[in-house]
């Protein structure tokens, strides 16, 4: 019991918090990508696979060209391509969105293992650190927020931009309309399916960048299925975040904190060292289960303030097809 508390207290030091903030970059990009895609009504269930394939593409290009930055557009292209396949299959061919996504998950995962085998153990390339001059020397906030690298800053900027775009611009309103009431959006002159292709591709590109952020920044290098299960966590966080970018970002940080906590627990419970690192995955799902529990939600409905913070419903038209008759 004392061990549980000790490990928790140990999390509150500057270096640990800074590492949680920095380590969240990959999930941050991918979560924003999936949020955008689902907000437009398309569930891209392939995240776990497409993120992995993109992570490989990014790593390979960075290694082969020697320039780490080339990895990111390559990964974005891979992510967007997979997302477009999901969109094409479900919009044009009226295939089941979940089925296409799942098959693509399996396919991309296996493909990344196959294509990546010769890169296992390859000397990694990483994004160079770049502390923001001046800001990074502020006590506590400096190391936590301003002493990382460009990828980490961009991840958080992406969150803010996603939020501003979705809720503060005309185009963002149209994006929401496409996912909530496609008929209404259509009658207002929005090309629903074209928008869905577009935002699914954008979302896929962000998922891909998330993959590259993982292999080029969070955990350098390539091994067998390095990002495995992260994609599923992304899908869970999107629901946990109630399809809201800022809340989803908190979900990502919560997952990072759970991981840090699990690692801190290892010295306290050495006999469980094999199990602990994988605990955050079920734990995150348990959190999701709790916040989605019907009884809890009914109770929340009685408190408008709590409801506004904690509850948010999926886009009404999520996962459905839209056809012009």
């Amino acid at each position, binding site marked *: 019991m004392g061990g549980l508390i000790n490990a928790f207290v140990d999390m509150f030091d500057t270096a640990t918090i800074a590492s949680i903030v920095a380590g969240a970059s990959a999930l941050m990009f991918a979560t924003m990508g999936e949020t955008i895609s689902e907000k437009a009504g398309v569930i891209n269930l392939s995240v776990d696979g497409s993120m992995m394939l993109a992570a490989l593409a990014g790593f390979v290009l960075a290694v082969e060209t020697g320039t780490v930055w080339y990895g990111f557009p390559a990964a974005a292209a891979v992510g967007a391509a997979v997302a477009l396949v999901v969109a094409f299959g479900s919009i044009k061919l009226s*295939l089941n969105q979940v089925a296409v996504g*799942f098959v693509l998950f399996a396919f991309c995962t*296996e493909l990344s293992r196959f294509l990546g*085998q010769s890169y296992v153990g390859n000397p990694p390339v990483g994004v160079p650190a770049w502390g923001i001059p001046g800001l990074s020397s502020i006590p506590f906030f400096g190391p936590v927020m301003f002493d990382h690298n460009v990828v980490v800053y961009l991840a958080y900027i992406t969150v803010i931009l996603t939020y501003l775009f979705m809720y503060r611009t005309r185009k963002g309103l149209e994006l929401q309309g496409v996912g909530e009431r496609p008929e209404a959006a259509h009658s207002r002159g929005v090309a629903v399916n074209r928008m869905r292709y577009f935002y699914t591709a954008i979302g896929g590109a962000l998922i891909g960048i998330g993959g590259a952020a993982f292999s080029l920044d969070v955990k350098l290098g390539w091994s067998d299925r390095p990002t495995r299960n992260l994609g599923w966590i992304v899908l869970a966080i999107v629901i946990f975040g109630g399809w809201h970018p800022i809340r989803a970002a908190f979900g990502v940080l919560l997952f990072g904190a759970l991981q840090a906590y699990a690692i801190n627990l290892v010295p306290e419970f050495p006999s469980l060292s*094999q199990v602990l690192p994988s605990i955050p*995955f079920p734990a995150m*799902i348990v959190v*999701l289960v709790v916040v989605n529990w019907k009884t809890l939600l009914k109770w929340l409905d009685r408190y408008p303030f709590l409801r506004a913070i904690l509850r948010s419903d999926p886009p009404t038209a999520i996962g459905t097809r839209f056809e012009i008759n």
Partner: protein
Amino acid sequence: MSRVNSVLLPAATVVVSVVALLLLAGTNPWDPLKIIVEGSIGWPPLEGGAARKVGDTFMVWVPIALASAGLIVTFNAGMWNIGIEGQIIMGAIAAAWMAREVSAPRPLLILLTIVAGAVGGMLWGLLAGVLRTAGGVNEIFGGLGLNFVALSLTTYLIIGPWARSGVASTSGTDPFPEDAWLPALEGTKLSPLAVVIALLALIGVWLLFRGTLYGLKLKAVGRNRPSSFLLGIPTNRYLLGAFMICGALAGIGGTSQALGLHHKLIPAISGNFGYLAILVVLLARFRPFWVIPISFFFAMIAVGSPSLQLRVDVNPTLGGVLQGVLVLSAMFGLGWAGYRALREASSAGVES
């Protein structure tokens, strides 16, 4: 015309993409396929000491076929039972517990382990179902969470309470007492009992949707839950039933994994066969009899592809890619054929 297309187009897509994949992998398309066949059932089939390989292939086929049978039930109920992996694992754990703790005459012990596996998987399936019906948690995420839990539990048992005597390692527990092994044919791991159970499960699922009111109602729940509810079908109970049937079948698959194939509990006891079964069922388009050949072919790929490395220096993960390409191209081939048929029909409608 369109009828021909709906068969030819998907088939052509599959063949073209598989050949393209193998050419891209840097081999001629024939060698890997031959090696996979050779490594799984022997080449020419069933010759040259192939008994052991065939046995392994069948024992890989059993859990895939059982899980597929179960998934047909949940898919018909409109559920994506991604938790199937966890259900296989819990079946294996329950069967392993029975094999470790109970001593009984052999036939009784075998029966007990199979029942234990079924119950273990069934309860895990029920849990995913309860999360869905009572908690409103999407079954995909509830199932994933339960998969993670089951996986962690296996690792914990292997390094903790059931650790090997001497050094605890993640390679697995001590082998179970031989009395608990599924009875197998001489010199192989092939257990006729397991194969028969898998076949019976598929026939049973076929009968369920072919000739029973329960199956019909389950299908109705899957097609349109609100309407079924208004017609007086207790939809939640039917959903739970589907999860329990699926979990039980997957759990028996887990028993076969632990007591038929590995003879011990290993961390990757499910062998990812639950996910593979989802691909099989999608490819078979939810038809039980198509599951038999498709899952057998997938089992051949799983057993045969490790020899790719030795023989043609192609990474064994090619097998997994092959499975993915198969399902993906069949799916899009069918989708494309359907799309064209629809367009032809509508343009014909305009003309007449």
